[in-house]
């Protein structure tokens, strides 16, 4: 329904991250680098005469300068507002006139633009993306109107949803120094001040072929795609001033943080715990793999440890889960959520949650359960071959999060090779309360449970 979407980190209260393995070998993937530094990845699927064309920039909300939060996402909107040769709105109009659809999304570590079109329109899509990579033109009134749009977007996604506000506060508390603590869509008071020059500054700094990855997925041959990419993107100048992607890091976290978010719009209270956690690093993905499996074992569906302990063996909760997102350039988070049953306080729910996790770490991994998860991961590789655009997204997100094609290819095997001992060790390391935030989300009349 709505478009030009901001991608968010996993909704802490609602999502358990499902395992999504990646296999370069089976996926029929080729890759190239043009002379100007632009990377091209081609994923072949010839079942239907359709292609998805995506441009991923290694620039997201966490690459913003202080004071202009939301500018990466705002620029994403403004990229549809015209170039030297295209009028505002003409980009999408041209895609539609070719029977295609287009959109874009922004996350902490990337901004991406994509079109789904008939395979014979790929050339035109590349031509237009290459054009707006270097020729963006922004009229002042377009910028101001679009700023109202992103403020309405923030209203819709965040201000109108106490769960989203709680998540925003919690993430801000988890990261004491790193920009992941600043929301992707931006803090409202800074969004209200964003202007044309802020957008152009971000554009000049980060939008260039040597900071971009083009992914073409669908009914295309690698050689054809390469020739088209060379024609369209090959002559664009690299940005010689592109700085290495170095971000500030977290200091040692020495004190656990606790917060209570009270809002009359909350009818169903819940508790969320997030821990600072390692992400998938190039050449070193085992710990992240162990954490992904740990999250599945604790929270991935009916047979997982938290629902078993809190919803089946006892009736402490109506819902419980664990989540982890390994794809991230810098330290990510590992989370637990419990929605208490009626009559159970948030404190009791939190205690039961901690007891269940501690009991699991003491008892060790249920090996039959682990085998089931590993088989599902293998099957997921087969199921995902049915959806070439989701495969394109996985590649784009991985390549803009510091991983290489080799890392992507190795990942499924790494997941299969993780031992119960590695999972317990990774689990013990991650549940460090000093590097955690615990939030109570509650309605106005339930203040007594927060103590």
């Amino acid at each position, binding site marked *: *329904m*709505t*478009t030009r979407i901001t991608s968010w980190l996993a909704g802490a209260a609602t999502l358990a991250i499902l395992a999504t393995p990646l296999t370069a070998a089976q996926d029929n993937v080729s890759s190239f680098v043009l002379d100007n530094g632009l990377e091209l990845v081609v994923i072949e699927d010839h*079942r*239907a*005469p*359709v292609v998805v064309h995506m441009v991923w920039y290694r620039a997201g909300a966490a690459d913003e300068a202080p004071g202009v939060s939301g500018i990466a996402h705002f620029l994403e909107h403004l990229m549809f507002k015209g170039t030297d040769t295209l009028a505002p*709105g003409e980009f*999408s*109009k041209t895609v*539609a*006139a*070719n*029977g*295609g*659809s287009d959109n874009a999304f922004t996350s902490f570590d990337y901004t991406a633009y994509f079109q789904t*079109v*008939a395979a014979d329109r790929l050339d035109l899509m590349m031509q237009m993306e290459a054009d707006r990579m270097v020729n963006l033109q922004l009229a002042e009134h377009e910028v*101001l*109107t*679009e*700023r*109202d*749009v992103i403020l*309405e*977007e923030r*209203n*819709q996604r965040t*201000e*109108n949803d106490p769960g989203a506000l709680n998540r925003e506060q919690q993430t801000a508390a988890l990261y004491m120094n790193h920009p992941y603590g600043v929301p992707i869509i931006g803090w409202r008071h800074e969004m209200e001040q964003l202007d044309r020059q802020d957008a152009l500054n971000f554009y000049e700094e980060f939008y260039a072929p040597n900071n971009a990855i083009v992914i073409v997925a*669908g009914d295309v041959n690698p050689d054809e795609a390469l020739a088209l990419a060379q024609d369209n993107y090959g002559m664009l100048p690299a940005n010689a001033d592109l700085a290495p992607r170095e971000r500030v890091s977290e200091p040692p976290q020495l004190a656990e943080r606790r917060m209570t978010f009270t809002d*009359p*719009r909350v*009818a*169903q209270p819940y508790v969320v715990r997030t821990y600072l956690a390692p992400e998938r690093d190039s050449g070193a993905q085992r710990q992240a793999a162990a954490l992904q499996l740990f999250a599945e074992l604790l929270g991935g*569906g*009916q*047979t997982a440890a938290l629902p*078993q302990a809190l*919803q*089946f063996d006892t*009736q402490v909760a*109506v*819902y419980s889960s664990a989540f982890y997102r390994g794809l991230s350039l810098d330290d990510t988070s590992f989370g637990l959520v419990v*929605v208490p*049953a*009626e009559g159970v306080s948030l404190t009791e729910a939190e205690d039961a949650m901690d007891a269940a996790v501690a009991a699991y770490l003491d008892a060790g991994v249920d090996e039959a*359960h682990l*085998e*089931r998860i590993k*088989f*599902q991961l*293998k*099957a*997921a590789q*087969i*199921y995902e*071959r*049915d*959806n070439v655009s989701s495969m394109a997204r996985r590649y784009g997100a991985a390549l803009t999060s510091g991983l290489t094609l080799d890392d992507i290819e190795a990942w499924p095997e790494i997941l299969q090779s993780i031992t119960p001992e590695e999972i317990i060790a990774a689990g013990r390391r991650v549940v460090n309360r000093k590097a955690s935030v615990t939030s109570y989300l509650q309605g106005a009349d339930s203040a007594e449970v927060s103590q």
Partner: protein
Amino acid sequence: MIMQKLLMRAVLLTLVLTSHVAQADVKIQEITSPGGIKAWLSEETSIPFVALELRFKGGASMDRPGKRGAVNLMTALLVEGTGDMDARDFAAASEAIAAQFSYDVGGDTLSISARFLTEKTEESMALLRGSILAPNFPQDAIDRVRAQVLSGLASDTTDPNAKARARFNEVIYGDHPYGSVLDGTVETVSALTREDIQNAHRDTLVKDRLYVSAAGDISAEELGVLLDKLLGDLPLSERPLPDHVQIETTAGIEVVEFDTPQSVAIFGHKGITRHDPDFFPAYVLNEILGSGGFEARLMHEVREKRGLTYGIYSYLSPRDYAEGYFGSFSSANDRIAQAIEVVKEEWTKAAENGVTEEELEAAKTYLTGAYALRFDSNAAIARIMVGMQQDDLTPEYINTRNANIEAVTMEDIRRTAARILRPDELYFVVVGHPEGLMTQ
């Protein structure tokens, strides 16, 4: 031996139709199983899995009087155990073979979607069969899942989107099942008994209100045998389907006060049926007026030009028992009154003047070009095929659909716009604390 015989009969009853989409080459086979179950199949063997879609007409509208929420709760309980398996056993068995089942219910249908590996077909179907035909509905599971439904109902009482939907449906559909929230109310859900759940199961999962499609690595013969085993023992319907309801509104705005920064608006009036002679002109007209694409008039006027919303769209809603024409958007409390004025103006303008030649051509180009792109995965093809059956279409539709779009003329649009856009009946429900807006 028996297996062999069944296979032979399935072959004989298979009627193969080939539909050539503009570009996508989707071959739909209409099959009838040896036991008489009809299904559409798109066989595609390059990936070793099958996507199977089942739809039961009636859905949550089959709730008996005073038992609102029974079909919804029943649907959620289908995975909570069958035979000697409890909920955990059932989940573990599905996980062990990586079979994925999802069960969902709406006002028109109860939907079951399955995805399973070809090599695990037999085990997957045995599990799915148990959940559909012989769920245990144990009391402890009823109570546990009921608590989840009640938790969701509580959350909905303070969610502006849920509040707007609930109130709008109440106004539009009145006493018809469409007019109330299918999850039920705290009172009705709390009072549901195991017998109510069993009745809901008996009322809804019936063989003569079933639509089936499959896409992926399975042959017509195999599918026929599979369907008889999976669904052959379903009973026939005993209770009638709901009555049709006529939507009647007059122009107006109803404000539901709720303290939140952004107001949510849902609007609309009556629409037309899927088989109305003007359906294609109406579909193209709405593409131009409110499809949600950036070229659509509402999106252009309310978002692109004035920045009053993040997204706005309108849609035809030809359901099984009512036809509506609806839309929705959200705007900050101090801007929603202005946004509503723009929507009303656009509605009137299109009703009186239709669209421009250029808009019509652009919409046709987009709609006809985009159609083939929908058929891009087995999962999508299976969903499209089952949806076509629900709409009472034939596989041939895939070949004629674009021609029907192309055939729409300016005169068709003018006539249809004057007929289906009803500014005098356009009713808005607004949830929030809108400034300068009162119920009128």
